[in-house]
């Protein structure tokens, strides 16, 4: 009888759809980089270093949800006066709005890989739609953690004026900003 139960439950386990699992953002492999043109010559880059968030992910049901917030006071361009200017009211106004938040409610799949995450970005107190496109996506078992890790590279191009970040537009500082997102999340 016991044996039968075990066999039955094993059979059930195999046919049941995989449940949505919670993944915690790995802060050591999750970064947002921005790219903005500089006088039509080169590209300025910056990085947001402090972040936290979680992902609900169900590969079988092809659903997911992600919430991640970034501490805008931890911006890093490699140029200290620029970091300071970016935190001022001209740009991120971190005294009033110290963080930015991305919420992705819709995961678009291509096969078993995430191809797009459709969501919203809240910045300077304004929430606007943003779609992140994956340039690669993969899951693997991390040999040290012995846990599943899923992640990839995503990107999108936004117009900063949509969030009211208008400084320099009249001086030729571009409106378009490319965001490059490295993300890995560990199954809990």
């Amino acid at each position, binding site marked *: 009888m016991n044996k039968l139960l075990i066999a039955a439950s094993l059979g059930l386990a195999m046919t049941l759809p995989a449940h949505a699992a919670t993944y915690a953002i790995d802060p050591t*492999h999750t970064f947002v980089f921005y790219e903005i043109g500089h006088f039509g*010559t080169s590209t300025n*880059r910056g*990085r947001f270093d402090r972040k936290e968030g979680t992902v609900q992910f169900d590969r079988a049901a092809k659903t997911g949800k992600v919430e991640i917030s970034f501490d805008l006071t931890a911006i890093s361009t490699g*140029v200290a006066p620029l970091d300071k200017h970016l935190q001022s009211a001209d740009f991120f106004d971190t005294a009033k709005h110290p963080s930015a938040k991305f919420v992705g409610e819709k995961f678009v799949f291509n096969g078993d890989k995430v191809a797009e995450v459709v969501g919203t970005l809240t910045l300077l107190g304004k929430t606007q739609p943003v779609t992140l496109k994956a340039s690669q996506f993969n*899951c693997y078992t991390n040999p040290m953690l012995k846990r599943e890790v899923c992640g990839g590279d995503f990107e999108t191009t936004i117009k900063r004026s949509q969030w009211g970040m208008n400084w320099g537009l009249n001086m030729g500082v571009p409106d378009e900003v490319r965001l490059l997102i*490295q*993300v*890995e999340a560990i199954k809990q």
Partner: protein
Amino acid sequence: MQRLCACAALVLAPAVAAAQPVVYRLDPQHTFVTFEVLHFGTSTLRGRFPVAEGHVELDRAAQRGYASLRIETARVDTGMPVFDARLRQGDLLSTEASPVAYFVASNFSFDGERVSAVRGELTLRGVGQGVELRALRFGCHTHPQLRREVCGGDFEGELRRGDFGASFGMPFVANRVRLVVQVEGIRD
């Protein structure tokens, strides 16, 4: 008649080849080398090196150029101090023995007035290897405050870190490294 022609050519030659190489000092606020390497076939790790000093000579009429950069590998910045410290160790950047990498190039390709590619030697961890940097964009403008010509662009190239002996973590972290170089130089 022949002698006259040769004589005329000699007189004309300096006028035709009047363009002298123009020297540009690299602007450390707009010159950074970023590396990209794939982590577990999943997401892209990025790190930034400041460029301590460098200069570029361009002779656009003769389509020649020369570049020399000192790249501060000891000041690698990934946004994660623990990871930076790991990168500085002997089996990766080995910055105690070699705190600086050098890129020296005298093989420039032009597309009209624009630099399209630069081939030279990168010395990393004391090991020299040929590297080609291709321009993604290149342009010049007159800096509004400095009132001087600034030229620069974005370049990309790739190397195999194993060729330089920086082989820790392969194959989980890829051998192939993409270099993304932002560069701007101010005319001397």
